[in-house]
């Protein structure tokens, strides 16, 4: 019989609502709250070894202690699978479910499954983790979908515990993690590509083997009248930073931005700047940093009057863009936008490599 640990928040453990959100990690032998529902769905194929609960606020305010206590409890119970949630549209709960799954999968090597609404912020974190041991099933927004969610979690948990082959997200119905799976087929790539192309040309439905990230549309910001009277700033993903890389950017997957002062500078002297980036050959940029931060041209245009005096922002913003996950880059964009707006910048020259 399959052994499962079920992690829930204080509410779904039946301990209380918002007033109990500060509850520390606790363990109940067997099933309690939502775990009872899960156990019913498991039938005689599995049982809940214990129900682990944590308050929604406690988890996020004491993450290290909470994760440690949960790892201890799960490690002691030695389950075949960990189930967390379903969290529906509850943000704190969704995030903690995903973080707990990630910690358990990494530290204990146990497969984990959670479930939540696709708009739950936990889904963004789940996609960021790209952890092959974690699956997240979509649910309804509200708890009305509880019975169905528990049934699907139970079925999935049984399959995971048995070590069954889990197919693609599209086939199995979990939320895609962006993991490229290797599958065997006797039809070579060229044949499949031509077939797909013919379907596309004939407006027939087809399924990409490598779906691209879906990008939301941002309506264009209004144009600037008389750009020479506007405050302009440079933002770049080229990774051009002062020589020595003082803020220790990595060549890939960076998670923060910096701005560097150029107020007193007429140009960027080679040897005083370097490009930190693992996605392109940085030799040209190191020889001439203006390929990424075109300060010489900006000063020329300033002298000619195309950029008003004092209108160029006194620093440029940078993050090496290589392998930046869309979620992180969105956050970086929001943070830089807030910083620019605070200083009344009105337009951005963005150099992307």
């Amino acid at each position: 019989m399959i052994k499962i640990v079920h992690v829930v928040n204080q509410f779904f453990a039946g301990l209380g609502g918002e007033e109990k959100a500060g509850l520390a990690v606790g363990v109940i032998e067997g099933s309690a709250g939502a775990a009872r529902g899960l156990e019913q769905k498991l039938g005689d194929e599995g049982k809940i070894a214990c129900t682990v609960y944590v308050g929604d606020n406690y988890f996020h305010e004491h993450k290290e202690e909470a994760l440690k206590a949960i790892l201890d409890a799960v490690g002691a119970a030695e389950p075949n699978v960990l189930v967390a949630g379903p969290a529906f549209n509850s943000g704190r709960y969704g995030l903690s479910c995903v973080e707990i799954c990630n910690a358990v999968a990494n530290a204990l090597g146990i497969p984990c499954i959670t479930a939540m609404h696709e708009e739950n912020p936990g889904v963004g974190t789940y996609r960021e983790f790209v952890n092959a041991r974690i699956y997240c099933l979509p649910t309804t927004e509200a708890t009305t979908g509880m019975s169905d969610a528990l049934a699907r979690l139970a079925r999935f948990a049984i399959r995971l515990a048995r070590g069954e082959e889990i197919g693609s997200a599209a086939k199995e119905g979990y939320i895609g993690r962006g993991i490229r799976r290797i599958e065997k087929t006797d039809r070579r790539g060229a044949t499949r590509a031509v077939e797909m192309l013919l379907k596309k040309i004939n407006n027939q439905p087809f399924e990409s083997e490598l779906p691209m990230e879906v990008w939301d549309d941002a309506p264009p910001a209004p144009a600037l009248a008389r750009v020479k009277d506007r405050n302009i700033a440079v933002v770049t993903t080229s990774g051009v930073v002062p020589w020595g890389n003082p803020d220790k950017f990595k060549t890939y997957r960076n998670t923060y931005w910096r701005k560097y002062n150029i107020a007193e500078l007429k140009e960027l002297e080679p040897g005083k700047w370097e490009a930190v980036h693992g996605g392109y050959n940085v030799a040209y940029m190191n020889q001439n940093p203006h390929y990424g931060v075109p300060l010489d041209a900006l000063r020329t245009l300033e002298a000619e009057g195309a950029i008003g005096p004092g209108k160029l922002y006194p620093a440029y913003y940078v993050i090496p863009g290589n392998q930046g996950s869309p979620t992180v880059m969105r956050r970086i964009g929001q943070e830089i936008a807030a910083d620019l707006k605070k200083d009344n910048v009105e337009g951005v020259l963005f150099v992307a490599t």
Partner: protein
Amino acid sequence: MSKELEKAGLPVALISAMFPVAQQVRANRIVKGVSIPHPCGDPNLSKELDARLRREIIQTALKALESEVKGPTVFSPPVAMGG
């Protein structure tokens, strides 16, 4: 990133050699850069011509900021770009 800046109401001139990708991800004001490792200029040119090309690219970017657009629009600097 550039789209978050636009959402905050800041027009962005995106200088990139990967302008088809920029179009695909629906950046709005796209300025053709020279190549991926050196978007703002061309090391194959003389120092003077390289600096002039860079000035043209930035001037095109400033014009892009002055232009109303309805969706992804590519602005090309008015010079021939080398290799």
